[in-house]
C-alpha cells in the first residue's frame, strides 16, 4: 500500500486528525466483517494496514475497536498479527471492549500450530487490563508447560507481564517458583534467559515486602545458579549472554581459584564482535579481581586491545558507547594507557561528543615521556574550525600544564596562544595562565610580559576578563601600566555587564592600591563609589566592606584583601572519588556515559534488578528498611577485600601519576533528596516494644503525649538514642556521601572484646542492644568494617558511623557523621562506651 499522504502524517490539533478517514474505515470494516466472499482477506489486509498506519502516526483509531474485533475471525495469520497489534495498543483504553477479544485469544491459545498459540498468548498478556487477569492464569499455566519452546519463551515473559498488571495474581498462582524450576531445567536457553529476566524483576519488586523474595533474589547469585548458567554460556544468544554476564558480575566467589576459572571460561568472550558482550565480560573481570591488585592490573592490560578494536569498528554510536567505558578506565588508571595516547587523537570528522572524551583521555595519560607530542597535537586542534573543541583543546593543554612538574615547554605554548589573536583562543588562554600562575608563581615574570601586551579591549568574555583583571591586581608591581589599565576599566564601570568581572575589578584595584598607592588612589575612590552604587547585591556589599575596612585600618585591610599567598598545589577535582567509585561499580551502564551514578538520573522504582544490593559499593547490605533487623545472610559476605573501597585501593597501589590521590571536598551536586523517614510512624505503631533500651522509652512516651516527666536518668548520658531507628540503605548512602566527617577517632578494643570477636556478626548484635544499628558489614580476620547508624530519640537526627576494627592490634577507627554536628562528640562517647562493653557479659 502507498504510504499515508503528507497531510495525514501530521497529528497537530488544528488538523482534522483523520476523523473522516476513521469513520470511512469503520464503514468499510463493517461491510467486510460478516463477508465470506473470496478475496475478502486481501481487502481486510489493506484495511488493517491503513488502521495500523494511522495508529503509528498518532491518529486515534480506538473507535474502531469493535469492528476490528469483529473482523478478527480469520485464519489468515498476517491478519491475526495486525489485529493482535491493534488490540494490544487499545485494550487499555477500552477495557470493556477488550473483553470481546478474550474469547478468540483464548481459543487461539489452544490452536494446533505452536506459533498461533504463542502469538495468542503474547497478545493476551499484552492487554494490560487489570480486570481481565483471571483469564490469563489458565493459558499461562499451560503455556509454561507447552511442548514447544516458542510458546514457553512467550509464556515466561507473559508471567512477567501478568506480574506488572496484578502482582498478587501472579504470586498466588505460584508462577515465580514455576519459573525458577524452568530456569534450572529447561532445555531451551531462551526460556532460561527469559526466566532469569522475569525472576530478577519479580523478586526485586517483591523483596521490599517479603523476606523470602529477598532470599530468592540473593539465591540467583549463588554459586550453583551462576555455575549452571556459566557452563551453558555459549548456548545462549548474544543478548542473553549479556544478561547472564551482568548477573555473574554480581557474584562474589568464595575462593580465589574460582576467579581464575571464571575468567578462563569467559576469556574468548573478549573477542566477540558484539560490544555489549565484551563490555559485560569486562565488567565481570573487573569486579572479580577488585581484591587482587596485580591481576586487576593485568585485566586492564588484557582488555585494552579488544576495547580499542570495538571503538574503531561499528557505527559511531556503538563506538561512542565503548569509548565512554574506555574513558572511565583511562581516568582510573592513566598510567596503564600512557603508551596508547595516539589512539586518543581526534579525527577531524568525529562528532564533538567523541572528541570531548578523547581530549579528556589525552589529558589524563600525559606523562613525562609523551607530553611533548600530546601538547603538539592539542595545539593543532586549537586552530580547529570547531570552536567549542578548539576551546577544550586549549583547556586540555592547561590541565596538562597543571599536572606536570616540568611545565617549561607548555608555558611557551600557552603564551603562543595569547599571540594567536583569535578572540576565543586568547580568552581561554588567559584563564589558563591565571590558573598556572596560582600554581607556579615562579613563572610570573614570563607570563606577565606577554599578558601585559594584551589590550583589555580585546577581551570580552567575562571569565577571561576576570582572569586578566586578577593578574593586573596580583602582579601590579610588575606591570607598568596596571594602575592605568584598571583605572580605565573603572571608568567604564557601567558598561561592564558581568558582576563577576566587577567583583574582580574591586579586588584588583584594592590590591593595586596597596602596592602603588599614589597611582591608584583615584581609581580606588572611583571603584568604591561605583561599587557602592551598584545594583548587584554582592558587588555592593563587597565595595561597602572594602570601604569600611579601609576606614578602620589600612594595614588590616591589606592583610585581609591581599595576604601573602601559598601556591595552590592541586586544584579540586570536579568529581569526588566516591562518585567515581560509584560510577565504576555501575560499569556497563548509562552511568558511565552520563558520568553520574544512577541515583542522579533514575527514579527509584526504575533502578533495575539488584540495584539494591549494589548500594554502598561492594559491601553487602543488612537489614531491610522495614524491619530494622540485621538479616543473617548479609554478614556472611565473604569478599576478602570488603575493607577497601576502590579509591582506597588505588591509593594503596600508590601509582597515581598525577597526584590525584587528593580527595576533593564533597560535590554539592551529588546531594539529593533524602528518602523519607518513617521513624516516627514506626515508633508510634510499636510503643510497647521499646524493650531493652530503657532510656529510649522515655522519648517514645513523650512522643505519645503521655505527659510523663522526661527527666533523664542520672546515670545515662545526655544523648538518648531511638531503639527503633530506621534508615534504609540508600538513604544511608546518600547521607554518608553528603555529610562531612564530624569526628574521626581511634580507640582501643578491650581484650575481652577482641576475644568475643569471632566474626562480623557478633558486634552488630551487641551494638543493637545500645540502639546502634548495623547497616552493612564485612571483612575477614583481622580486619572488619562496619557501617552503623543511630537516631536521636526525640527528633529525626541521624548519626552515621564507619568503624574499622583490627583485632590483631585491638584498635578501632571510628568516623562519625551527624545531621546535628553539635552532638556528635556526645554520640561518640556513647558509641565508644557501647563498644568498650563488647565482650563483657
Amino acid at each position, binding site marked *: 500500500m502507498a504510504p499515508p499522504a503528507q497531510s495525514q502524517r501530521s497529528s497537530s490539533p488544528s488538523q482534522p486528525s483523520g476523523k473522516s478517514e476513521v469513520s470511512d474505515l469503520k464503514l468499510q470494516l463493517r461491510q467486510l466483517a460478516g463477508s465470506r466472499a473470496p478475496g475478502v482477506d486481501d481487502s481486510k489486509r489493506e484495511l488493517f494496514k491503513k488502521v495500523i498506519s494511522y495508529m503509528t502516526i498518532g491518529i486515534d483509531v480506538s473507535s474502531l475497536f469493535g469492528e476490528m474485533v469483529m473482523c478478527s475471525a480469520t485464519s489468515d495469520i498476517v491478519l491475526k498479527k495486525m489485529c493482535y497489534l491493534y488490540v494490544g495498543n487499545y485494550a487499555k483504553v477500552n477495557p470493556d471492549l477488550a473483553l470481546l477479544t478474550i474469547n478468540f485469544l483464548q481459543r487461539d491459545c489452544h490452536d494446533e500450530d505452536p506459533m498461533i498459540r504463542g502469538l495468542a498468548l503474547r497478545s493476551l498478556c499484552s492487554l494490560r487490563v487489570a480486570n481481565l487477569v483471571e483469564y490469563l492464569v489458565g493459558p499461562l499455566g499451560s503455556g509454561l508447560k507447552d511442548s514447544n519452546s516458542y510458546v514457553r519463551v512467550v509464556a515466561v515473559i507473559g508471567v512477567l507481564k501478568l506480574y506488572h498488571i496484578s502482582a498478587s495474581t501472579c504470586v498466588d498462582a505460584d508462577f515465580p517458583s514455576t519459573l525458577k524450576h524452568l530456569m534450572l531445567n529447561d532445555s531451551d536457553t531462551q526460556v532460561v534467559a527469559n526466566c532469569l529476566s522475569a525472576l530478577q524483576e519479580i523478586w526485586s519488586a517483591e523483596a521490599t515486602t517479603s523476606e523470602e523474595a529477598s532470599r530468592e533474589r540473593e539465591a540467583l547469585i549463588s554459586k550453583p545458579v551462576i555455575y549452571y548458567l556459566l557452563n551453558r554460556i555459549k548456548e545462549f544468544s548474544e543478548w542473553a549472554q549479556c544478561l547472564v554476564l551482568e548477573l555473574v558480575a554480581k557474584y562474589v566467589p568464595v575462593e580465589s581459584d574460582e576467579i581464575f576459572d571464571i575468567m578462563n571460561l569467559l576469556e574468548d568472550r573478549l573477542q566477540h*564482535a558484539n560490544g555489549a558482550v565484551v563490555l559485560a565480560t569486562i565488567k565481570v573481570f573487573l569486579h572479580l579481581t577488585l581484591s587482587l591488585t596485580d591481576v586487576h592490573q593485568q585485566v586492564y592490560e588484557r582488555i585494552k586491545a579488544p576495547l580499542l578494536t570495538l571503538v574503531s569498528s561499528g557505527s559511531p554510536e556503538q563506538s561512542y558507547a565503548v569509548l565512554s567505558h574506555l574513558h572511565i578506565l583511562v581516568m582510573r588508571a592513566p598510567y596503564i594507557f600512557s603508551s596508547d595516547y595516539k589512539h586518543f587523537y581526534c579525527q577531524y570528522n568525529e562528532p564533538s561528543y567523541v572528541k570531548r572524551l578523547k581530549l579528556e583521555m589525552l589529558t589524563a595519560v600525559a606523562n613525562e615521556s609523551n607530553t611533548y607530542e600530546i601538547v603538539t597535537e592539542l595545539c593543532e586542534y586549537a586552530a580547529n574550525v570547531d570552536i567549542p573543541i578548539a576551546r577544550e583543546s586549549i583547556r586540555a593543554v592547561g590541565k596538562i600544564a597543571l599536572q606536570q612538574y616540568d611545565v617549561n615547554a607548555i608555558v611557551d605554548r600557552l603564551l603562543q596562544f595569547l599571540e594567536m589573536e583569535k578572540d576565543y583562543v586568547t580568552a581561554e588562554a588567559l584563564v589558563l595562565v591565571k590558573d598556572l600562575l596560582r600554581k607556579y608563581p615562579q613563572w610570573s615574570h614570563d607570563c606577565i610580559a606577554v599578558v601585559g601586551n594584551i589590550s583589555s579591549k580585546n577581551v570580552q568574555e567575562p571569565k577571561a576578563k576576570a582572569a586578566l583583571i586578577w593578574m593586573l591586581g596580583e602582579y601590579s608591581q610588575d606591570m607598568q601600566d596596571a594602575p592605568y589599565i584598571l583605572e580605565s576599566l573603572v571608568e567604564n564601570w557601567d558598561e561592564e555587564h558581568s558582576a563577576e568581572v566587577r567583583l574582580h575589578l574591586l579586588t584588583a584595584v584594592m590590591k593595586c592600591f596597596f602596592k602603588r598607592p599614589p597611582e591608584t588612589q583615584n581609581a580606588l575612590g572611583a571603584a568604591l563609589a561605583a561599587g557602592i552604587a551598584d545594583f548587584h547585591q554582592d558587588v555592593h556589599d563587597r565595595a561597602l566592606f572594602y570601604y569600611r575596612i579601609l576606614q578602620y585600618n589600612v594595614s588590616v585591610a591589606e592583610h585581609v584583601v591581599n595576604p601573602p599567598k601559598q601556591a595552590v598545589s592541586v586544584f579540586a577535582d570536579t568529581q569526588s572519588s566516591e562518585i567515581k567509585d560509584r560510577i565504576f561499580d555501575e560499569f556497563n551502564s548509562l552511568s558511565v556515559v552520563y558520568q553520574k551514578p544512577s541515583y542522579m538520573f533514575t527514579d527509584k522504582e526504575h533502578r533495575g534488578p539488584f540495584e539494591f544490593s549494589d548500594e554502598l559499593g561492594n559491601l553487602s547490605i543488612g537489614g531491610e528498611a522495614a524491619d530494622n533487623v540485621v538479616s543473617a545472610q548479609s554478614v556472611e559476605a565473604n569478599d576478602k577485600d570488603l575493607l577497601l573501597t576502590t579509591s582506597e585501593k588505588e591509593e594503596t597501589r600508590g601509582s597515581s601519576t598525577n597526584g590525584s590521590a587528593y580527595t576533593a571536598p564533597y560535590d554539592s551536586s551529588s546531594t539529593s533528596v533524602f528518602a523519607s523517614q518513617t521513624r516516627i510512624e514506626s515508633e508510634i505503631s510499636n510503643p510497647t516494644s521499646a524493650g531493652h533500651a530503657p532510656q529510649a522509652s522515655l522519648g517514645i512516651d513523650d512522643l505519645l503525649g503521655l505527659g510523663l516527666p522526661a527527666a533523664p536518668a542520672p546515670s545515662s548520658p545526655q544523648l538518648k538514642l531511638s531503639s527503633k531507628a530506621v534508615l534504609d540503605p540508600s538513604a544511608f548512602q546518600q547521607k554518608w556521601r553528603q555529610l562531612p566527617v564530624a569526628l574521626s577517632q581511634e580507640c582501643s578494643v578491650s581484650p575481652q572484646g577482641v576475644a568475643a570477636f569471632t566474626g562480623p556478626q557478633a558486634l552488630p548484635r551487641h551494638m543493637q542492644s545500645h540502639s546502634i544499628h548495623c547497616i552493612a558489614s564485612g571483612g575477614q580476620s583481622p580486619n572488619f568494617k562496619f557501617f552503623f547508624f543511630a537516631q536521636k530519640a526525640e527528633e529525626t537526627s541521624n548519626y552515621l558511623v564507619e568503624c574499622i576494627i583490627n583485632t590483631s592490634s585491638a584498635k578501632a577507627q571510628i568516623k562519625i557523621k551527624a545531621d546535628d554536628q553539635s552532638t556528635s562528640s556526645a554520640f561518640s562517647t556513647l558509641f565508644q562506651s557501647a563498644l568498650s562493653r563488647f565482650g563483657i557479659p
Partner: protein
Amino acid sequence: MISQLFVLSQRGDNIVFRDYRGEVQKGSAEIFFRKVKFWNDGGEGDAPPAFNVNGVNYFHVRVSGLLFVATTRVNVSPSLVLELLQRIARLIKDYLGVLNEDSLRNNFVLVYELLDEVIDFGYAQTTSTEVLKSYVFNEPVMIDAARMPSLGPAAIFMQGNKRMPGTAITKSVVANEPGGRRREEIFVDVIEKISVTFSASGYILTSEIDGTIQMKSYLTGNPEILLALNDDLNIGRGDYRSSYGSGAVILDDCNFHESVHLNSFDIDRTLTLVPPDGEFSVMNYRMTQEFKPPFRINALLEEAGLLKAELILKVHAEFSSSITANSILVQMPVPTYTTRVSFDLEPGAVGNTTDYRESSKTLEWGLKKIVGGSEHTLRAKLTFAQEPHGNITKEAGPVSMTFTIPMYNASRLQVKYLQMAKKSNTYNPYRWVRYVTEANSYVARL
C-alpha cells in the same frame, strides 16, 4: 530493558512506533526529535547517542537517513541497546533488501512483525534471520531498484566490477527470484577504512586501518564454509614490532562473529563458520602497522600581495594504474576573512568540480575518478577582507580527503579461498570476494 522502539524519518515522522512496556509517555518521539534537532543550538555539536530527558533515556542510531530510537527509564547497558538498534536496522535491511524511508513505509507491517519477535516486553529475544523467518509472514514489497539512489558500498561494486549483478547485494534474504528459484550465492566483502594524518612536511603522524570482513549469504541449508586468510597473518603487536618489511600482515587485534570457529585459525589462518542468513561481520580488525597510503597530498598556501593568497593543492595517487579511485572529495577550511576564491584547474581536467562554501569557509574540490599513478593539481586564488594577523597557514587547513577505492586494500589482508566444507559436484554456488578501501579520516596539515 527497552520501553519503546520507534523509527523516525529525517523530518521526524513516525514510521513505526512500538510500545513494549507502557512506562514512557506517548509523546516521547516528539520530545526526542525536538531535542536532537535543537541540540546544536547550545554549541554542543551533535546530540550524543544516549541522553536523558526527565528520567527517560533516549538511545538512537542513524542508518540510511533514518533514526532508530529506543527509550527506557532503567539504567541499562548503553552498548547493548545501541548494538540492538543497529542489529534491528540490519535485520530490516536483510528482509527488505534496501533500507530507506520508502522501503520502510511500504513494509511497515512486516517491520512490526519483526519488532514483535525481536523484543518482548523490552527484552531482546532473537535477532537471527533464520529463526525469525519462521515467525514472520509478510512478504516484503520491493521498491523499484532503478529509482533507488545508490547507497554505500553496494554502489561501488556496480561500477567497479561489471560481472557483478548490480542489484545482487540489495535483494532480500526472504524474497525469491522471479523464476521462483533462489540464486545460491555468497558475498564476502573486505572493507577497510583508513585514517592517516600527515604533518605539514608530509611525514605520517598517525595511521590506522579499521577493517571488516563482511559476509552476506543467500545459501540454502546453511552449509559450513571455510574462509582462508593470508598465511603470514599475525595478530597482536609487541612480538612483531620489528618485523615491518618482512611482508607479514600484522593486525593489532581482531574480533569475530559468534558463528566463527577458530579451531584451526592458529595453524593455518582458516575460519570455519556456518554463515547465518543475511549480512554480518565475520571479523573486525585493526592495524596500526605502517602501510603505504594511497594518496599523497601537497598543499601550499602563500600570501600573494595585499589581501590575496595563492593555494596550490596536489594529490598524487600512489597505487597501481590498474586501479581507479572513485568519488574523491578534497576539502580545506580557509581563513575566516576570505571573501572570494577563484579556481584554476589543470588544462584537460575532466570530472572535476570546485566550490567555495561561504557558510563554512571551506573550499571543496571533487574528482570523479583518479587512476593509479596519476597526479592532479588545483590552483586557487583567495581574496581576503582584512589583512592576515601573521602566518596564514595557521588560519587555514587542514586538508581532508574522502574517497573509495574498489578492489584495493591497504592492509594486504586477503581472502585466499572460500570453500564449502561438504563438497558436492552439483553444488557450486556463486562466490564473490570483493575489496574496497575508504577514507575514514585522511588529513594533511598545513
